[in-house]
């Protein structure tokens, strides 16, 4: 029996995120005004038998805690 888990990984606040900035600059060019604070991260989906181990997976491999925050979404 495995559980579907989603891990959201995003750049840590305060670290320059040029991808987010590029997207933020591109949207008004398409007529989408009023968009701010765009950040681009990563979604990792996995089926796990033991969801209690996901945090450790994040710390050791799925995210680099020095530069990224992660959030486990059931």
């Amino acid at each position: 029996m495995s559980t579907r888990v989603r891990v959201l990984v995003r750049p840590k606040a305060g670290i320059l995120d040029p991808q987010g900035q590029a997207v933020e600059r591109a949207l008004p060019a398409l007529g989408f005004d009023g968009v701010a604070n765009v950040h681009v991260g990563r979604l990792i989906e996995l089926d796990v038998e033991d969801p209690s181990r996901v945090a450790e997976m994040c710390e050791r491999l799925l995210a680099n805690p020095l530069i990224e925050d992660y959030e486990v979404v059931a």
Partner: protein
Amino acid sequence: MRFGVVRFPGSCDVEDALHACSLAGEAVELWHADRGLHGVDAVVLPGGFSYGDYLRVGAIARFAPVMESVFEFARDGGLVLGICNGFQILCEAGLLPGALLPNTELRFICRQVDLEVVTADTPFTREATVGRRLSIPIKHTTGRYYAPDLDAIADQVVLRYTEDHNGSSRHIAGVCNEARNVFGLMPHPEHAVDPLTGSDDGLLIFRSMSLVGAVA
């Protein structure tokens, strides 16, 4: 001095690294899946795209079998040099402080750059004098050096760019660990070992390392 250059799947600068090492000593190739370091005096992690650089640059390579031996080797004072992807791997492994992020302009950069030697008090730069300029190429997409506390690692900065190229904090191009036996840099000294290709300034690093072997 016997250098061992590690080949990971996706390493693409092994040949130049072996050649550069052979100009300063003996050079042998090591294999990512082989824990053995085969009696080398220094380990070089070369540039490339180890394991496809999937997930994050260097994130998978850091768990390669050979890295278990590299950890022990580094802990025992062995010289470890990480170039470009090798630098990224050493940061992911926690053997060096900080991390490498995508270049500010989100583009692959390939150009000859000027570096300044910040310290000669490392086994990798002891042939240099502080302030010496080195002309060495960079070629990377993920070379923006970041560390959460730059003051804490100020004396571990070994090389700086003389101008901004990729958005690196304080123009940092290369750092060493506290014990100063592990060194990583984004520029490619192995591509600068012959005036034919523009500069032989990169030799200084390999020659410095070989001197250490002679002293020991």
